């Protein structure tokens, strides 16, 4: 067991840090420290391209597809340095963390060559078409339909909670491709261009006043027959593989950004004197501990992933970070007091910490609610009996 990094890895760290500091202190100083996913989308598109151009976009991917074959330790180091330098949330995080790895795992050589370099270069932004109005956590209940017509797949239906669809070029869609199929059977996993007459994106204004999420309507939308991952009817397997990525490697970089949020809470507490309150001190200490434990939990998880072993502990990760961040939002507001409940200017747009308080209420819902996560842990890790289920309609 070893936590320290080798001299070679420290060289890599220095190289990454130097590049990030130069860019985020220079030409991209305006996006440094951004926390909102929807602010300054054009500049953040530029930032994605800049990262891609310099080979820092998807460091763990194969070089052939625009990555740099970075080892696990190097990926960890890059994520840390990215957060330390104040790198903004990645506009293309779905492409980088979900679509890309899924295409790598399930795609044909042609699909990999077509899609992966465009993600790595920051040229194509992706979003995710899983949830539906009638199927949130119950993903096997999707009703969006797809069928073959000539050389295309045609798609009809509606998705909801499509994060960042308004900025996206591509969406991956789970659709029912076998008439009369039920549950996880008869689904297909399709890659669909967003900019076409059959796709309508309608932003949903959320609790923060921002609109990161969207409703996405498919009304005879089309995609080339070749744009299916896996085989027709086998989309569930692809989708579940993708959820594995979502709960695995991809959240590390995001978790590193939590450090900056906690630092902002501490700075606020020192400024307004809340840091003298023994109860606030306890909660800040808990947040400090929780943050470190997320980091080391992620490192454990990744070490096991690299060894090719499944570790049930990985199932606990989503609930850990989502709950931690929700608690941090509450703590931030208790530190700020009433000053956190008002904002200058006429727009309903709160600064980072109050926004975190509001936004973090989504963390325990999307990607599988805390309740669904507990069922998964109880059933898959602890081997408890399944919750009795009603018949799927």
């Amino acid at each position: 067991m070893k936590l320290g990094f080798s001299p070679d890895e420290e060289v890599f760290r220095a190289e990454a840090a130097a590049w990030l500091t130069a860019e985020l202190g220079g030409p991209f100083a305006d996006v440094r420290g951004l926390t909102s996913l929807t602010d300054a989308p054009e500049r953040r598109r530029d930032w994605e391209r800049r990262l891609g151009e310099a080979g820092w976009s998807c460091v763990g991917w194969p070089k052939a597809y625009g990555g740099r074959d970075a080892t696990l330790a190097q990926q960890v180091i890059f994520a840390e340095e990215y957060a330390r330098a104040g790198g903004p949330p990645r506009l293309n995080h779905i492409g980088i963390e979900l679509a890309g790895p899924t295409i790598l795992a399930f795609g044909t050589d042609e699909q990999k060559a077509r899609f992966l370099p465009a993600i790595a270069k920051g040229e194509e932004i992706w979003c995710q078409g899983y949830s539906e109005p009638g199927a949130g956590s119950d993903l096997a209940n999707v009703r969006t339909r797809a069928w073959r017509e000539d050389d295309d797949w045609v798609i009809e239906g509606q998705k909801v909670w499509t994060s960042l669809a308004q900025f996206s070029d591509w969406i991956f869609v789970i659709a029912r491709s076998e008439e009369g199929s039920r549950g996880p059977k008869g689904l297909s996993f399709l890659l669909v261009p967003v900019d076409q007459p059959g796709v309508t994106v309608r932003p949903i204004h959320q609790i923060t006043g921002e609109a990161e999420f969207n409703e996405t309507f498919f009304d005879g939308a089309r995609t080339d027959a070749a744009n299916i991952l896996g085989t027709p009817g086998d989309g569930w397997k692809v989708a579940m593989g993708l959820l594995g990525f979502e709960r695995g490697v991809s959240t590390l970089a995001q978790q590193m950004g939590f450090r900056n949020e906690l630092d902002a809470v501490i700075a606020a507490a020192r400024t307004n004197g809340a840091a003298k309150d023994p109860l606030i001190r306890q909660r800040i200490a808990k947040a400090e501990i929780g943050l470190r434990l997320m980091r080391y939990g992620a490192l454990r998880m990744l070490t096991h992933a690299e060894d090719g072993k499944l570790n049930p502990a990985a199932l606990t990760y989503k609930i850990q970070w989502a709950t931690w961040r929700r608690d941090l939002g509450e703590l931030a507001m208790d530190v700020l007091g009433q000053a956190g409940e008002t904002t200058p200017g006429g727009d309903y747009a709160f600064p980072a910490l109050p926004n975190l308080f509001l936004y973090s209420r989504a963390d325990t819902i999307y990607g599988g609610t805390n309740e669904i996560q507990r069922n998964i842990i109880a059933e898959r890790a602890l081997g408890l009996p399944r919750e009795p289920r009603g018949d799927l309609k």
Partner: protein
Amino acid sequence: MHFAFTDEQAMIAETAKAFFAEQATSERTRAAMAATGVDEALWQAFTAELGLAGVAVPESEGGVGLGMIELAILAEEAGRHVAALPLLASVGLAIPAILAGGSDGQKMRLLSRLAAGELVASFAEAAPGTIWSDGALTGSALHVPHGARADLFVVAVDDKALLIERDTPGLAVTPLTSMDQTRPYARLDFGAVAAEPLADPAAALAAARHTGALVLAADALGGAQACLDRTVAYAQERIQFGRAIGSFQAVKHRLADMMVGIEQARSAVYWAACAIDERSDEAVFAVHAAKAFACDTYSDAAGEMIQLHGGIGFTWEHDAHLYFKRARSDRTLLGTPDWHRERIAQMAGLDEAA
């Protein structure tokens, strides 16, 4: 970076797991509880046969020459069975103090015998008002873990660390009826007792407190895991309202939460162990974090174990109370979770000017 056991560490863990599962049975632990709180046969097997009391003592000092990760592994497995051993007192507290702060002569005289289990030592924090002057100690230490079994004490008095042997004139040792009978306390009274200072007291006290906290955290991790495992097993077999109670979300969600806490505690314990072994800048922070988090986790898990077992969990006959009481002892010894978090609050810069 490789945050998982090496093959050798995995082997030690398997061996320790099998050893404690086979020998630290409920029956034997209960027999020890009814007597002195030490399962002497288990201690003999652990120390003399396996040589494991010296796990983190260098080979040159008569030990096994491994580190904190291996010590944590042993403490975790012992904790899983609430083993009635002076593991914390001797291996977690006294040996590290002597190893870190003893003179060459003190180390040579004591370490190999402690590592072999021939001597049992404990560590005592002197009560306020205890005075060390002219080579004699006067005062008391109120709650010394496994104090009645120890042959030797390392006593912390202000910034001094003193060695006192059990048979030194003027030392009175009084066994105390202790809530956790698997780790009973004793009271020490010092009537102008001659004592020998350790050469480097600062190093000795720091090592005792940090290693002790790590051992307690690892004990808590193993104990919490046992609470979860046993409660899961019960929830799978206990039928109510025509279903195994483990199929009810009200039960399964709580067991899931226990696992979430335990996995974080596991990260904390091994992070702290690694940080000490690697002499990382984070080591002190990590030890505070591990002690606070793992002890909270154990208290929660042991409480849930009783609750989810229903009435049987409240009985003397069921082992739940052994865990519940050990969790309480782990929590209080060497500083409560709140105390450790306050140290972390200071380390997080909360007292610096804005």
